[in-house]
């Protein structure tokens, strides 16, 4: 392997260089898998004002003056006459706010609260949910629970209304309202008020305020003039299921010292519960909130450990790993039947099963360390489910695998091809290996500037084809799986195959920090770029002493002061 540029600074300066992907298929096709996704996602925050202009574009810098016709700085983009764009200007990592339930969280929430048949669960997994057909949300950095991107659009408002109608009607016909809002011989308005107070506390994940009770009393009274008691209760429920109190999780907090805000105990309970269970708080956690224990580090630690010991935490943990590694789309990844005729529904299911089993074994059953994830059972990077996603429909596509390591495991941002530079595919050649084809392509000076960062890593995966099957030979030629890591803080050097690569990365502090940043994005629902590092420093210091245990990482989040502290925006 020829000498490579190894300066870390290269990552930051590369946007200024000519580059191209040589890709016939941008691996950024799916949400969040491309280097552009970060900046793009952060830009979406312009709408909410939560974190516009975050340094989330990271190494992209301002991206000005790149080759080809790419010019300008990508700034000054608020000239829409409609206005209404965000106003916050700083890149505060922890701003107060509210966050809409993701569709997955919605399913879990209505199932927990209403035991509805409109959501079915097998084991701990939701197999069918009323929210499955809701308008698809944007992903930000791969995570579909983004606080900044999730809003209630007209389509979704209509779907929420339909779902609430169905859920409430089911509750009425199923006779559950008789249990929820009994009123044998009592005053109906008192019964209705009791219902709102008790069931509302579950739905809203906090006590119902006095003024809310008053408004619901009016709603009930209005309905009761034209409907019977049960229908009037149904009207309350149908309405409650569409309120902001139900649809948004609040992390708004209350004013504290020096311009900061502190989450209420109920907000803290929700954050804990949705983080670890994708679900609302259970009775015990709600009781802890009521008792005020979640305001203390010890109280949050106790609660987090209890939630983590429940089987309900396993799939949310798996969700974190698959969103982080871009492998959530395994269920829909498409392969070329001519190239991979064996890739059928059975194989897909086997890959999905393998994904679940591997993540369970490494992050749930065992010591849960980042090292175990990267090296246990030959390591995550050798797993067919991961390699199948990070490939093309008809070839291994080393560029996708190199990008996976750079962007998802090292949290480095890669530049994008300059505008108006023709990006052409690497032609197929039955007499060459994939590596030979891509090497020739990336030797093109216009491409080499960036591909020197990507290809030497991706080539190390070459003994695994586009569906993750091992191959020593390709087109009758031996496959070279030597690779090299460069431009990392502490993992540089040559390797053979993704197993060895995993071993090198397992010891890297840069990787550990990146895992922490990915968890930050999952837990808080947005990306804050470099600001994440400062926010995370106490957590990361403790993570090291906790053997880099991913489960422990979430406990450390819960224990940290940042978990419950928000910096008020001006």
């Amino acid at each position, binding site marked *: 392997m020829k000498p490579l540029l190894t300066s870390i600074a290269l990552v930051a300066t590369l946007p200024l260089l000519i580059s191209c992907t040589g890709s*016939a*298929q*941008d691996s950024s*096709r*799916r949400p969040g898998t491309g280097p*552009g996704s970060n*900046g*793009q996602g952060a*830009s979406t925050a312009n*709408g*909410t*004002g939560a974190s516009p202009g975050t340094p989330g*574009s990271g190494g*992209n810098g301002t991206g000005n003056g790149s080759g080809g016709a*790419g*010019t*300008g700085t*990508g*700034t000054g*983009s608020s*000239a*829409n*006459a*409609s206005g*209404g*764009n965000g*106003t916050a200007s700083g890149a505060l990592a922890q701003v*107060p*706010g*509210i966050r809409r339930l993701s569709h997955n969280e919605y399913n879990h929430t209505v199932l927990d609260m209403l035991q509805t048949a409109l959501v079915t669960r097998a084991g701990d997994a939701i197999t069918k949910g009323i929210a*499955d*057909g809701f*308008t*698809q*949300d*944007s992903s930000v950095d791969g995570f579909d629970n983004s606080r900044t991107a999730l*809003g*209630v*659009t*007209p*389509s979704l*408002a*209509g779907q929420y*209304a339909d779902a609430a109608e169905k859920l409430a009607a089911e509750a009425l016909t199923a006779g559950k309202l008789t249990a929820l809002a009994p009123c044998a011989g009592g005053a109906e308005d008192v019964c209705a008020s009791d219902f709102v107070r008790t069931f509302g506390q579950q739905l809203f994940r906090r006590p119902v305020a006095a003024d809310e009770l008053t408004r619901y009393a009016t*709603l009930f009274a209005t309905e009761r003039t034209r*409907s019977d008691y049960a229908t009037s209760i149904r009207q309350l429920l*149908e*309405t409650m299921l569409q*309120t*902001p*109190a139900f649809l948004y999780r609040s992390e*708004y907090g209350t004013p504290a010292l020096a311009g900061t805000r502190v989450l209420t105990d109920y907000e803290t309970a929700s954050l804990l519960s949705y983080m670890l269970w994708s679900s609302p708080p259970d009775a015990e956690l709600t009781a802890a909130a009521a008792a005020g224990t979640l305001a203390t580090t010890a109280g949050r630690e106790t609660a987090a450990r209890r939630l983590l010991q429940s089987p309900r935490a396993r799939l949310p943990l798996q969700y974190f790993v698959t969103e982080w590694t871009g492998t959530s789309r395994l269920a829909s990844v498409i392969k*070329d039947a*001519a190239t991979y005729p064996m890739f059928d529904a059975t194989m897909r299911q086997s890959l999905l099963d393998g994904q679940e089993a591997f993540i369970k074994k490494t992050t749930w059953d065992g010591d849960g360390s980042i090292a175990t994830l990267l090296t246990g059972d030959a390591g995550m990077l050798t797993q067919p489910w991961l390699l199948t996603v990070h490939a093309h429909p008809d070839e291994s596509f080393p560029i996708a695998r190199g990008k996976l390591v750079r962007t998802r495991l090292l949290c480095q941002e890669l530049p994008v091809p300059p505008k*108006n530079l*023709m*990006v052409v*595919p690497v*032609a197929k050649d039955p007499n060459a290996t994939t590596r030979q084809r891509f090497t020739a392509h990336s030797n093109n000076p216009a491409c080499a500037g960036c591909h020197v960062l990507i290809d030497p890593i991706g080539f190390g995966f070459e003994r695994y084809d586009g569906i993750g099957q091992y191959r020593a030979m390709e087109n009758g030629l031996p496959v070279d799986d030597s690779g090299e890591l460069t431009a990392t803080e502490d993992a540089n050097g040559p390797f053979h195959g993704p197993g060895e690569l995993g071993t090198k990365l397992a010891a890297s502090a840069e990787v550990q920090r990146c895992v922490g940043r990915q968890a930050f994005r999952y837990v808080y629902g947005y990306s804050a770029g470099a600001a994440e590092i400062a926010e995370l420093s106490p957590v990361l210091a403790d993570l090291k002493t906790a053997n880099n245990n991913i489960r422990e990482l979430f406990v450390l989040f819960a224990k940290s002061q940042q978990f419950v502290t928000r910096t008020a*925006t001006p």
Partner: protein
Amino acid sequence: MSPSRSLLRRRELLGALGAGAFLAVPVFRQSLAEAQGAAPKRAIFVQWPDGVPSACFQLGMCGADGLPDLKYFDFDGQLASFAALKADTIILNNLRAVAAEKNSAEGHEAGMASLLTGRSSRGGTSVDQYIAKQVGNLTRFSSLQFAGYPYGGGGPQDRISYADGFDLAPEPDPVAMFEKLFSGAQPAPGGGAPDPAIALRLAQKKSTLDFLKAEITAVEGATGAAEKPLLDLHLESLREIEKQLTQVAGAAGTACAPPDQGGAVKGQYVGSEGDTIDVQVFAKLQLDLLYQAINCDLTRIATFQWAPSVEVQVKYDWVPGFSAAPDQHHAFAHDHESPANEAIFQGIQNWFTSQTAGLVARMKATAEGGGSLLDNSVVMYASEMSNGTHILSPLPVLLAGRGGNSFQNLGTKLDAKGVAHNDLLLSIAAYMGAPMAAIGDNGLSKGPLTL
């Protein structure tokens, strides 16, 4: 959403439709506007992915500046199926995608983010949504977003429509769209009192909406400026839902028959196993629903996305030469070296165009006032990039429709002289009665193009 999940929903809905679970509405066309004596104005934005086949490279027809000059984007090339409609069209020449060129994201994402916003970063408000805010109250739906492909996707390359920073996903399900368009309360025959059960249900929904609007306002009062856009979006969405409830049909006018609910949608595009989709049938249904929505005056503003930029899921296997590999559209968009692949790519782009031309022809064949529905419309048929190899400019755009007979350059190629495409968006907004001084990035708008 994975295809399997959306299919699951489709199967459920098919069952629901079979059970007759919703109410059909007789809808009336152009009632409001015709009553007022003014022709309704409509804007439809149709996006196709990855630009124009790169005949420029093959045939040595590149422009002097090295950029493609879109020679294939003409009536003897990709626009062949528009030839009969030439007198109702304008081909835009030399329109630059300046905002996309400034975007730090890669070409496909940049092109999509800027197409209707004129912005160099994702977000803002796209021109369709700006217009919808101004004049959308005239119809039951302020605007509609259609997908011409049956898959989801939540990335920047999947969206063209934005409202105050939040992206609007196109509807990938004709059944859901049909249900949305044509369900609602049914007025009693002869204008008598409506069915009391339905009237009660409407009153209940209205009561809920009133309550929710007050709740949003209360939350807005208790939270900070950062939450305002999120809550304002929610509030606007509730108002839209409310309008859909109460503005079911116009006061008077020609009855407009919705598609046959028994046959138009149900089960036509989902294979017998429930896991295969006939994309050609799917697309026809979506286009039909778009036409009906316009014809019935349910909306006057719509987007239609033929595919994301970077389409790798649809098998366009009715196009000659297309093999089983589903990523061929995007692969061949990048491939200008193989004439065979180029031909397949042309075949797909031509298909998008012919289907769009079918919609336009149908609008032209629909009488309205003394002319046709097309006379009072503008259809912007555009791609987010010039060429799939990440060449962004010039932006290929065909305008169809006579803009209420205000357009002066019909039947010609209009030289835009290299201005940013923001100016074209201004022209369409102006025609729609929603004039904007500028759109998108500061400094990119010079003023509406004279069409």
